[in-house]
């Protein structure tokens, strides 16, 4: 019995040794082994007196030359696709493990931070953001946002929007699309608690520059320090990022919270005369040039 099993095993091994890729070889071997089994079972059925060893021997005989079959099968079952498949499985497995480890580690620490921030900022909008929104909305009816402890305090200033900014055309520069989306020219009257003694009325243009970029390539906030300006009366405005003398007109650029691929910058321009009919943002730095003219409308739509 043992000897025949071995012969069968040897036959199968020889018949499949040409197949180099392991899993393939095993599959074909089991297919051939099944065939042999069926054949032996048939012999036993047809010749009930035949011994199992004989049945096995005859089955092997009728199967044919293991060497020849082995050669043919070897030619057909090339291992390259098999190796490639194994390689692709391993690469995927390793990359997946790496990704999970990385994500698990980062995810856990990020989760903590995120949870802490969520708790701390439960539904609160920073006061500064509320103030910027107020100015950019140009809404004459809107109440100026106050901090909780400020309700009783009079700041002594009245704020009135006198000209309005509606959306301008979109300008393209580098990878970005830039547009001034809203804003207003504000008139401030009265004496400021923060800057007592400063003459009134004063005027400032507050407008929102929206920059649309590409994923992972947001406009660096420092680039906004190179935006300067001109008004319809010929006054020029330097960006505070470049330094400016006191008393001179200036533009202050500040990044606000944006969404997705959109970034928002608040541009504060001091002081734009109330007669100005338009304001132009100028940019010429590092070989890139662009300009956006912002009409200052007398009526709000």
């Amino acid at each position, binding site marked *: 019995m043992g000897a025949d099993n071995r012969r069968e095993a040897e036959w199968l091994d020889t*018949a499949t040794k040409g197949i180099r890729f392991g899993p393939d070889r095993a*599959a*074909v071997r*089991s*297919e*051939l082994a*099944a*065939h042999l*089994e*069926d*054949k032996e079972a048939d012999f036993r059925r047809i010749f009930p007196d035949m011994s199992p060893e004989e049945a096995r021997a005859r089955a092997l005989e*009728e*199967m*044919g*030359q*293991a060497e*020849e*079959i082995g050669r*043919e*099968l070897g*030619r*057909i*079952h090339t291992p390259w696709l098999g190796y490639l498949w194994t390689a692709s499985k391993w690469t995927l497995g390793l990359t997946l493990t790496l990704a999970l480890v990385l994500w698990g580690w980062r995810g856990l620490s990020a989760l903590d931070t995120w949870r802490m921030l969520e708790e701390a900022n439960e539904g609160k909008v920073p006061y500064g953001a509320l103030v910027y929104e107020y100015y950019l909305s140009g809404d004459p009816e809107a109440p100026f946002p106050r901090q909780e402890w400020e309700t009783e305090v009079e700041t002594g200033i009245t704020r009135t929007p006198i000209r309005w900014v509606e959306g301008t055309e979109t300008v393209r520069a580098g990878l970005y699309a830039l547009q001034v989306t809203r804003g207003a020219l504000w008139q401030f009257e009265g004496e400021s608690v923060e800057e007592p003694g400063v003459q009134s009325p004063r005027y400032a243009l507050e407008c929102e520059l929206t920059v649309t970029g590409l994923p992972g390539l947001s406009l660096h906030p420092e680039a906004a320090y190179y935006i300067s300006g001109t008004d319809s009366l010929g006054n020029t405005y330097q960006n505070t990022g470049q330094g400016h003398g006191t008393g001179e007109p200036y533009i202050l650029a500040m990044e606000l919270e944006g969404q997705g691929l959109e970034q928002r910058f608040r541009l504060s321009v001091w002081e734009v005369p109330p007669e100005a009919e338009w304001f132009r943002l100028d940019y010429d730095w590092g070989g890139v040039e662009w300009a956006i003219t912002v009409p200052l409308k007398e009526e709000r739509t």
Partner: protein
Amino acid sequence: MKFDKGLIAGSSTLLVLALLEKEDMYGYQMIEALARRSNDAFQMQEGTLYPILHALEKEKYLSSYQQQAPTGRQRKYYRLTKKGKRLLDEKRTEWAAFHKGVEDVLSGGANALSYS
């Protein structure tokens, strides 16, 4: 009666494809069907069936799947694909032409006037 091996080799493909035309079969089943249908005229070395099956499968003339036999073992069944059916039809035509040609020669041209 055992036929000349050369004749068998060329027509093995045709035989295998024809066997699978009506029904999916596994290797041993095909050997049996072949013997049965030809009344034992065709008896090939059974092991040589598999290189043919695998080659045909590799070229997408056949597809395969595993099915569990009543004995509990997994059997690999082969099925004729559309491409395989087209090849079968082609080979049939070829064989018919070859067959006719041989017939014509053997009969001394008696059938030469009848067109097929």
